[in-house]
C-alpha cells in the first residue's frame, strides 16, 4: 500500500534532494526532482515556486533550463524539519 505523505513531508523530500542528491553543482532540474520526490509536474511547479519565493531554494538559470539548489535558509529549515519530525514522532504524529 502506498504511504500517505503530508505536504510538509513532500517539501522535506524536495529540500533533502536538493541538498544531498544533486545531479551536478548547478542544481537539480524539475524532471529530476519529479522523479526523486515522486509527485506530478503541476504540483511540484507550485511547490517550487513557493519554496523559491520563501528563500528556501535558489533558482539557477543553467544552459537555458532552470535548476534548483538549496539555500542557507533552506538548510536551516531542513535541520528544523528533521528535529521536529522526531518531536512529532514521539506523539505518534507526522508534521
Amino acid at each position, binding site marked *: 500500500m502506498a504511504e500517505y505523505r*503530508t505536504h*510538509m513531508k513532500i517539501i522535506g523530500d524536495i529540500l533533502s534532494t536538493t541538498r544531498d542528491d544533486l545531479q551536478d553543482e548547478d542544481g537539480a532540474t524539475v524532471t529530476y526532482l519529479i522523479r526523486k520526490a515522486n509527485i506530478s509536474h503541476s504540483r511540484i511547479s507550485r511547490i517550487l515556486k513557493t519554496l523559491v519565493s*520563501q*528563500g*528556501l531554494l535558489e533558482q539557477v538559470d543553467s544552459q537555458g533550463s532552470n535548476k534548483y539548489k538549496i539555500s542557507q*535558509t533552506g538548510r*536551516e*529549515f531542513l*535541520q*528544523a*524539519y528533521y*528535529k*521536529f519530525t*522526531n*518531536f*512529532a*514522532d*514521539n*506523539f*505518534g*504524529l*507526522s*508534521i
Partner: protein
Amino acid sequence: MEFLLENILNLVGFLVGLGIGIMSFIGFRNTGSPTLFRLTIAFFSISLGFFVIWAGYMAEDFVIKAGHIERWVQTLGIAIQTVGYFFIAFSHSIKSFFPKSSYFRSVGILPFFLVSSVQLEHLFRSVSFILLAYGAIETMLSYIDNRNKGAISVSVGLALLALGEFLGWYSFVFPESILYPVSMVIKIGGLIALFIPVSKVPLTKIKFDEGLE
C-alpha cells in the same frame, strides 16, 4: 497530604505543559506545520488548566481560607485541560467529533446550562478520559508503525493521565478514600512520562525565522 499532592500535580502539569507547548510553538514557527500548531494549542491549554487549579488552591490557602477550593475554579481548570486533550486526540484525526448538523450543534450545548458545576466537572473528567485513552491507543499504534521509542513513553504518559482522570472521577463514590491521592500520583507519573522523550529533542541551533511564516 491531599493539598500537597494537588499542588505538586498542578505545578508539574503547568510546567510540563508549558515546556512541551513552547517546544511545539518553536517547531511551528520554524516549519509552519499545522500538526505542531495543534500540539501548541493542546499543551498550552493543558498548562493553563493546571495553572488555574493551582492558582485556585493558592488563593484558597492564602486568601480565602475556606478549607476547600472553589468548585467552579476546579471545573474551569479541568475544562481547559479537556480542550487540550481534545486537540491531542484531534491531531490523531478525529474527523467528526462534533455533529455536523447545526441543529444538533445548538442542542449539544444545552446540557452545559442544565447541570451544576459538580456534574460539569464529572462530565469534563469523563470526556478527558475518553480523549486521553484514544490518544494513548493511537500513539501506541504509531509505535508499531515507526518503532520510535519515544512514542512508548508518550503513550504510557497519556494512559497514566487517563487512568488518573478515571480514578479522580471515580473517587466521588468514595470521597474520603485513598483513591483521589492515588489518582494524583498516577497523573504526576503520567506527566513525567510525557515529558521524558520531549526533553531529549535537541533544540540547539534552532532559531526563529520570520521569513518562513
